[in-house]
């Protein structure tokens, strides 16, 4: 299946860098040749440049889901309530919920979007993932592989 994998997050903020780490793992293992890998870092608004109606998208992000650190959950945007918390004082407050809301309003929201959230353990200014989140990276890659190639070919 034609899938775009999009990482969101800041790899200089501990486990917020899990998306980038997943992209690195895919590149190193060469497990998904030819698949489009995009890292939008912290610019969630850039998602609007990359969402293409008609194509499938997998978005990998650290997510506060109230689960155990390192837990991985894949969900569709309509299965959850993503809290909009635009801070109104700066454009820095734009996050995924705001980007999805805007994409829907201007007709750019693709039907197929899967979010793979990883519950973070450690959000501090530092490079590198915590052990539990690093251990979750292969599980995220497996979920992406299963999505790209449901038959396990």
């Amino acid at each position, binding site marked *: 299946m034609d899938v775009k994998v999009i990482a*969101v*997050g*800041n*790899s*200089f*903020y501990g486990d*917020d860098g899990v998306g980038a780490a997943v992209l690195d793992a895919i590149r190193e293992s060469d497990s998904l040749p030819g698949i489009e890998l995009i890292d*939008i*870092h*912290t*610019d*969630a*608004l*850039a998602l*609007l*440049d990359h969402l293409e109606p008609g194509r499938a998208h997998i978005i990998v*992000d*650290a*997510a*506060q*889901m*109230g689960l155990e650190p390192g837990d991985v959950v894949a*969900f569709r945007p309509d*299965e*959850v*309530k*993503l*809290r909009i*918390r*635009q*801070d*109104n*004082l*700066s*454009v*820095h*407050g*734009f*996050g*995924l*919920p*705001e980007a999805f*809301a*805007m994409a829907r*309003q*201007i007709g750019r929201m693709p039907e197929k979007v899967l*979010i793979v*959230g990883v519950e*973070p353990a450690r*959000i501090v*200014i530092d490079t590198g993932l915590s052990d539990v989140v690093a251990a979750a990276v292969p599980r995220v890659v497996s979920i992406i592989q299963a999505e790209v190639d449901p038959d396990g070919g």
Partner: protein
Amino acid sequence: MSTNLEIKVEHLTRVEGHGDIVVNMRDGVLEKAQLEIVEAPRYFEAMLKGRSFHEAAIITSRICGICSLGHQITSLKATEQALGLEVSEQTVLLRKLLIHGAALQSNILHAYFLAAPDFLGVGSVFPLVGSHPEVVVRALRMKRLANDIGDVVSGRAVHPITPVPGGFTRIPTEKELLGLKQRLLDDMVPDFLATVDTMEALAGMIPDFTRETEFISLRGDDDYALYDGDICSTDTGRVPDSDYMAMTNEHVVSHSTSKHCKVNRSSYMVGALARWNNNHDKLCDVSLQAAERLGLKPNCHNPYMNTIAQVVEAGHCALDAVAIIDTLLENGLKDEAPNQEPTKFGTGIGATEVPRGILYHEYTYDRKGRIAKANCVIPTGQNLANIDDDMKKLVPEVINESKADITLKLEMLVRAYDPCISCSVHLLDVDFIE
């Protein structure tokens, strides 16, 4: 007349940054009017210590998603001065092109997504998407092209990687630059003119408020100074960037974890309005015509007009980007390697105009080419004291208005500065629907 007033706007509740507007008036006496910062991005210095000169710019560019380019360029300039690395004219031109892209992107987003909702009396940009979809789509188109300037020149838009100490690891191709030029002329310029139309219709909503202010920005002899120049104060004129400590005077205040700054007065302002006041004579005609239509005059001391100054500046960035591409192509693109042979290990300062104002990085390197000491002074930190001073003058002037109106004016004031206090973590908050 209302003599007692208490306002507390708790806006920024993100993990990494927190800022509240706090106003308190009792029996007609203003006790407090300030922006309280509980946390601010000032961790650069500790992270930089011990890093090699190859790493400094990469680290600082990753601190903030939107301000990354400005940090990167400023960091490179500080490192190059400290290590005695000369850069070519081509490198300077390519960096100026990057700065134009970043300024365009930031200024446009600020005008459309932050300021316009205020002017239209809606709480956020989302109602605008429904009522004025073509305007929002235009804003996104401009943002994308501005982003693409970064993609073409630096390899990646948000966290550029090809700019390194001494130059670039990859030079864009003639075809790529010509493509950008065409899109700037065909799309960006008309979109800019349409932006001026939109803003002209809204400019009447800008509060009429004036406070005598010291403005500080770069100023050069040749161009509208963004990449380099002297530090220039509207009070006392030009000094070299080596005087930056005296031109910032960072000091600790009790209500903010970010330090405040002052020079000749209790506060000063940096950003597009400061650049306009110091350098409007260097802007292109298209920008000057936009300024006239939008009511922006030289020596403007209304901080709300910062948004208009950003819009005016965007026209210059678009057209000067075209001029830079022309010069690069006339000179002929040279596939030159970055100059990374240090001729000394000392201290260097980088001063650059980033969208929110003048940004300083200062590094001292040891003999092994590792950072022994680093200091970064960010624009928002420099503006905080000025925001407080504006609030202290504004509140008594509008005290007879409703609390909601006063609150809105205070919020708009803070937004006019587009403060960068929450720029690092973008965690997703999720509630599963049962």
